[in-house]
Every structure is written in C-alpha cells, then in structure tokens.
C-alpha cells in the first residue's frame, strides 16, 4: 500500500485507478474471457450467435471453449493470429469432423470420468451402428444426422435439462426437423408421417398433456445414438420394457411365434407410431383387429367373440355399478366405502383387459371373475343404501302425514273456538 503524502495526490491516484478500471471494463478485458468471445460477441447474427448459445451450455460450465472444437489461438489479439491454420484452426467442422470431434472427448472414458463418474462413453460406438452413423461415416452422406443435429452445435445441454433439444418433451420436434420433412425422407424411402402419427398417439398424450416424462418418445423405441427401427422379432420386447405384463401374456399365447412368419408383434394390432388407447371394439366381431388375419370360420373367431362379450359385459356392469353408487351419493348417502371397493373392481377390470393378450377366453374369464365378485358386492351395498333412502323417505311420509292431520285438527279447533 503506497503511502499517500496528502489528500490531493490521493485523489489523483484514485481517479487514475478508476479510469483504468473503466477502460479495461469497456474493452471487455476479463480474466477468463477468450479473444474468440470478445470479438464474436460484438459481431452480428450468425457470427455472434455461437457465443450466445455456448454461454450457459454444459460445455461453457465445464470450461470447454471455442478453441477446443474449432482450434486456433484463443489468446491471440488479432483476428488473423486467432484464426491461424498453423494453430489448428479448422473453421466450421464438416459432418464427419463433428462426429470425430465429439468422440475425442465423449468416447474417452478416463476424460469423461473427470466430469461425471457415471458418464457413458459408448455414444460414438452406438452411433457407428445407427443408420445415421452408417450414412455419415461410411457412405459419407452429409444429409444424415450428426451429434450436433440433435444436441445442437453450441447450445449443448444435459439431456434432462428442460431446455435441451433432447429433453423428452423436445426430442420429437428435434427428430422432426428431418423426419417431419417428407421430401427429404422420400430420398431415404421413409414415409415421413411418423412424427404426425406419434403426435396423435396415446404416448404423445401422456407426454404432452400429462407431462409424464416416462412416456416413450422416438428414442425410447428406436434408441438414441444407435437409432434404427427395431426388427420384427424385437418389437414386442421393445414394448415389453414398459408393458411387461402384456408381453408376458403374449409370450404365453398362441401368437408367440409371430416373428417366425415375419409378423411384428404388438404392432400388428396396435400399429407403431399412432398407438391409440385400446378399446373393447378391437375385439368386436365386425371391426376387431383379429379379423385382419382370422376369418369367422376359425376357432380364433370364437375366442375373440367370447373375450369381447366378457370385457364389454364387465364394462357395462362396472358402469351400471358406478351409476348406482353415484345415485345413492346424490341422494345424500355417504358412499366412501363403496367408492373404495369400486377402486378394486376397476383394478380387476384393468387386469382383465390386460389378460386379453393371452388370447384365451378361459383365462380371461378366470381373471374377470374377481371383478364380477367385486361388482356384485358393491351393487349389494349400493342397493342397501338406496333402500335406506327409501326407508327414510317413507318414514317422512308418515311423520309429515301425522303432523299434517294435527295441523288440520288445530285449524278445526280454532274455528270451533271462535264460532
């Protein structure tokens, strides 16, 4: 600390210090800012955007900066020196370069472990097996997707960050950038309807309406880095990762050998992208999905008919019961216990619907029996309550009648008194 002789020189020193501070601030000389940032952030549009996007990215947070991918000299003071090829500057990397660049770090286990011990490093390996990877790396076809096509070039974020391009609720739109483009997809013999179909599906409803992040998006069935359509044999296993029970039953069913004749498991009845909430009508004798393969002479038709009857019968009964319970509740009876049992019946009903995947009417009837027992019990309870309502009302008629007569007698009494 210098020793200031008097107030005047102290003021002077202070002014100079403040000036220096102001100038350096104005120039943007900042300890950890590279010259790339300083210059590019002052440029317009396309040339400054990367800086803005990179800020707040996972790379920026971990001090991975421009030069780590683009090369060059981030400490150089002028443009030429900074963009020097001799310092490894590569400009905008091409598709193959991008994949390789990302791979230098992301396929390096010991490097990635420094940032996240659980980090996976198999993305590049998987990518090489995907249709995207084969097109880019083997066929050198730049139309396919690279790492940056999905993750963004500069605004790379962790997958579970809601602003990330690959966050569950965003991933469909990310894929749609290419797969929603019918012209582009036609070049690859892909219909291009998949995204629109998906958006009409029960899975999309779960994802977008209920914000249920466990609902499958594109990558949950197709894989992400190793993206490829699942083969016919693996469809039911893919669906089975979530719909375990259905898969188990299906495997016990006469349909278990479908893949041997080239049929695609679940997809044959439920379709693939546009999966709608299943209805009993899928088993109906006029437009059931079974009719796609079976005709009315086969025993399978009988099974379908029987299963349809059981399910719709159960559903009608359940609705009827719910109505009875609601009716009693509307008439002022507390029906909490019945509602609780109704919950059990609903469980049994949902189980019955799952049970159809064994394609055995006997098995379904066996499962549905539990629901029927529940329903009968609830109906009994609801009837008791409704009887109680009638009893109360009847009592009132007697009560009201008695008092009405008393009222009239009193009137007569008054008249006779005042006559």
């Amino acid at each position, binding site marked *: 600390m210098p020793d200031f002789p008097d107030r005047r020189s102290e003021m002077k020193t202070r002014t100079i210090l403040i000036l220096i501070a102001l100038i350096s601030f104005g120039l943007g000389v900042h300890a950890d800012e590279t010259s790339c940032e300083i210059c590019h952030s002052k440029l317009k549009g396309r040339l400054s955007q990367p800086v803005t996007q990179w800020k707040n990215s996972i790379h920026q947070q971990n001090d991975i900066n421009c030069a780590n991918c683009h090369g060059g000299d981030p400490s150089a003071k002028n443009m030429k020196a900074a963009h020097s090829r001799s310092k490894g500057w590569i400009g905008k990397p091409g598709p193959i370069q991008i994949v390789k660049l990302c791979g230098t770090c992301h396929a390096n286990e010991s490097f990635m472990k420094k940032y996240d011990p659980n980090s996976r490093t198999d993305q590049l390996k998987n990518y090489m097996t995907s249709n995207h990877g084969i097109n880019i790396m083997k066929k050198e076809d730049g139309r396919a997707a690279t790492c940056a096509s999905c993750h963004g070039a500069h605004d790379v974020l962790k997958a579970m960050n809601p602003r990330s391009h690959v966050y569950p609720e965003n991933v469909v739109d990310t894929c749609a950038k290419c797969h929603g483009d019918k012209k582009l997809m036609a070049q690859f013999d892909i219909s291009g309807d998949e995204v629109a179909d998906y958006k009409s599906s029960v899975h999309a409803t*779960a994802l977008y309406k*209920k914000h*249920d*992040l*466990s*609902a499958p998006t594109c990558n949950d069935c197709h894989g992400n880095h190793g993206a490829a359509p699942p083969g016919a044999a693996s469809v039911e296993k893919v669906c089975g990762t*979530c*719909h*375990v*029970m*259905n898969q*188990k039953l299906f495997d016990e069913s006469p349909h278990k050998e479908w893949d041997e004749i080239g049929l695609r498991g679940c997809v044959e009845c439920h379709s693939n992208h546009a999966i709608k909430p299943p209805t009993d009508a899928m088993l109906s004798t006029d437009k059931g999905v079974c009719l796609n393969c079976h005709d009315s002479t086969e025993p399978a038709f009988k099974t379908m008919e029987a299963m349809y009857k059981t399910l719709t019968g159960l559903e009608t009964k359940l609705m009827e019961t719910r109505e009875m319970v609601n009716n009693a509740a509307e008439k002022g009876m507390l029906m*909490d*216990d019945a*509602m*609780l049992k109704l*919950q*059990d019946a*609903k*469980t049994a009903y*949902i*189980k019955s619907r*799952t049970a159809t995947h064994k394609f055995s009417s006997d098995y379904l009837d066996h499962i549905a029996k539990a629901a029927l027992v529940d329903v009968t019990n609830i109906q009994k309870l609801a009837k008791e309550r409704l009887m109680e309502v009638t009893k109360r009302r009847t009592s009132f008629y*007697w*009560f009201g009648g*008695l*008092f009405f*007569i*008393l009222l009239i*007698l*009193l009137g*007569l*009494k008054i008249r*006779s008194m005042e*006559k």
Partner: protein
Amino acid sequence: MDSSRRKFLNGLLGIFSLGGVAAVLSPLVHYLTPVKKQETAVSSVAAAKTNELTPNTAKLFKFGSKPGILIMTPGGDYRAFSAVCTHLGCTVQYSSAERHIWCACHNGHYDLNGNVISGPPPRPLEEYVCFVKGQEVYVKRREA
C-alpha cells in the same frame, strides 16, 4: 257446535298430539343411545394391530376413500404408501418374494420407498408417516 263434537275434536287432538310428541321423541332417544362401533380418532388411521404383520408382509387399509398399503419391511419397520398405482390407478400389492411393491395390472414395480423400479408407472407412490401407539399402527399424511 254441540259439546259431544267438541269433545270428539279435543280427543282426536289429544291422541294426535301424543303421536306427534312420540314421533319427535323416538328419533331423539335412538340418537342418544350410544353406538356400539365407536369412531376412530383420526387425521391418522389405525391401519393394523401391532401383532398383525410379520416382517416381509403387508396389508391394505382404508385411507379416506382410497386404499393405502402398510408394509412391514424384512428389517421389521413399518412403511405406508398410497396403494393407488400412479399408472392407471389400480390397487398395488406387496410381493414378499421380490420384497417390494407390485401392481398386477401392468406389472409396475416400486421399491420400499415408493419409487418406481420398473414398468409403466410415471411417479412414485405417495408415502405416509407410520407410528405405533399402544396396540395399533397408525398412518397419517405427511405434513409439508
């Protein structure tokens, strides 16, 4: 009006008045008679007797108008959850073999903290607080 008619009217009035008084009093007397089944004290629910469960078993109980599940873990402590599966609202059960909670409808599995292990459920089960008082295990909703 002759006195016999008047007497008749008074008689009728008397009889019906008695009837009226009886009609009012009888519900009151019934109301005052203590009920056998006494109500349980509750923001908490008595889910089970302490001797009811052995380690690695569970039982369902009524929590409001919804089912709850009380589990005695293999380690011997009590855990309670809402028994309504977060997938489609089926009632879950305890699987002693797998030592965790299981929903039979679509094979959803939850661990003993209510978190989803596998299957379609999107969210964990709501966990309740358990405590033992006397011979009963009580369950109540978690305070914020």
